[in-house]
């Protein structure tokens, strides 16, 4: 009988020495699962869909304190907004005035940051004019052609496949990624966020970040004006052998380096060995200015 009792206790995870570690682990897992279920119930998600009929160049604004905003192209005359609210403590205000649509999250009193989160997914006409704001992000837009403004303090910003558009991005420390932005007017500002540009070309591409790094991978297009500046971050540009640009790079306190064969060029800015370089490649159709105060600058050939 005693043997049977001991066997039963062992199966239950209890020995003479006390409760076995496996039992504690199992209890912890069960507690964790329960806690997750309870918290999920507390932050019950609600999904709502809004549809708006618009004309060409619709002006669409989405403003949320917390949450992701993702925009993709849809039909040419309809805007579809899917809002996922993370709790009942937040509402979505939506308004259409003609061709202008305003969507905003409205956090009710007492709601915390997480429970005030709303994630938005938008399908918009490709030529739409967009204003997206989320403090937490991420913000993403792809396959569009209009005027895009994306702002957020900590938001990671991803913009892909934008052609003939204008891209204006501002973050405090969120990382900014632009990929395949062709023939665009790009203006990026960040306090400490890194900026990654891959295949980004256009008549005007400007990046200004305080302590963030700037990475450029592309050919600087043709006939464009590229101005990259950072205070304490590094700048690294990776270009193909047939790049056609007029380069000027200067780091006030940092070092500069390049392995691209540059033709010397007379410049009113004298080149200081190690801290600046000036020169052209190909037909020098684009102008590229790389500036850092105390970071390193490197121009590399692919």
């Amino acid at each position, binding site marked *: 009988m005693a043997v049977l009792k001991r066997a039963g206790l062992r199966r239950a995870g209890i020995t003479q020495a006390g409760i076995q570690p496996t039992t504690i682990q199992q209890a912890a897992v069960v507690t964790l699962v329960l806690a997750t279920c309870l918290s999920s119930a507390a932050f019950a998600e609600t999904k709502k869909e809004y549809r708006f009929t618009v004309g060409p160049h619709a002006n669409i*604004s989405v*403003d949320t*304190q917390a949450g992701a905003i993702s925009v993709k192209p849809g039909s040419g005359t309809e805007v579809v907004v899917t809002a996922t609210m993370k709790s009942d403590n937040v509402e979505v*205000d939506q308004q259409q*005035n003609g061709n202008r649509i*305003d969507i*905003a*999250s*409205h956090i009710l009193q007492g709601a915390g*940051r997480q429970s005030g989160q709303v994630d938005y997914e938008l399908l918009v006409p490709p030529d739409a004019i967009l204003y997206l*704001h989320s*403090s937490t992000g991420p913000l993403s837009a792809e396959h569009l052609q209009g005027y895009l403004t994306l*702002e957020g*303090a900590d938001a990671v910003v991803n913009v892909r496949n934008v052609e003939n558009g204008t891209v204006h991005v*501002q*973050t*405090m*420390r969120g990382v900014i990624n632009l990929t395949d932005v062709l023939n665009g007017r790009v203006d990026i*500002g*960040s*306090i*400490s966020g890194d900026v990654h540009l891959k295949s980004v070309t256009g008549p005007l591409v400007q990046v*200004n970040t*305080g*302590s963030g790094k700037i990475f450029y991978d592309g050919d600087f297009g043709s006939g464009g004006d590229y101005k990259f*500046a950072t*205070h*304490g971050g590094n700048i690294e540009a990776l270009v193909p052998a047939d790049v056609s640009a007029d380069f000027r790079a*200067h780091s*006030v*306190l940092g070092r500069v380096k390049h392995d691209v064969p540059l033709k010397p060029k007379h410049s*009113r*800015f*004298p080149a*200081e060995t190690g*801290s600046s370089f000036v020169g052209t490649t190909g037909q020098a159709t684009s102008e590229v200015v790389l*500036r850092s*105060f*105390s970071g390193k600058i490197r121009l590399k050939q692919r």
Partner: protein
Amino acid sequence: MTCSEVQRILPEFLGSAPDGALQTDFQTHLKSCPDCSDLLSDLTFIASEARQLTASEEPPARVWVRIAAELRAEGLIREPESVPVRPILVPTSPRRRWSALWLAPVAAAVLAAGAYVINHQPASPVAKQQVASTAVPAPAATQTAVANPTPVTPAPVSTPAPQQLAQKSTPPSLNAVRPAVEPEPSAEDRQFLSVVSTRAPSMRATYENQLQAVNADIRETQAYVNRYPGDADARQHLMDAYQQKALLYQIALDRIQ
């Protein structure tokens, strides 16, 4: 019906007419009470005007700048606790940040101050001496100037002198241009952080760190520009640093509602 009863149901009356008996009492009181009658007509006018307002008719930014300047001149926005609690008459749109509106003119002021400092900065004795002695080999000139910073005859330094940059010896190290003493935060920065603390306490540390970093960049660049006023790139970096600070204020303005 008394005045207080009328005033209690007045908002309902503005939205939709009350039921028959109540309306009769209401109208009777209004006929006999000029105060309540005036109040009703005022509220009706305000409500009708408010409905006409659209976002496109929002006053331009300069209006807010002027208001903020006047409030500051009157000392009303010097300290956050001295700002009177704003009565909520109309629900504010989520896109309007009235409560943190003072940050916008402050950000603009930061930028303007930066531009002014950069464009109207008098050359330091060291810089003046450097410009005056451009014909002399730079390293010696710089060393002499640093070792013996006695002011000499002022020389114009309004335009950058590229030759001067070329003649700089080696670039000064980071420590050489970074001021040794961290200055106290300005009144505007203190107010900025105070508002962030009140409205988004969890973000205070983040904004404070970012602000310190931007201020450090400004000081570092300013020190360099003081030393090499002819360096056009350094002056541009100083302008950029002020723009970073304005951007930080602007981001805070967007965030704290």
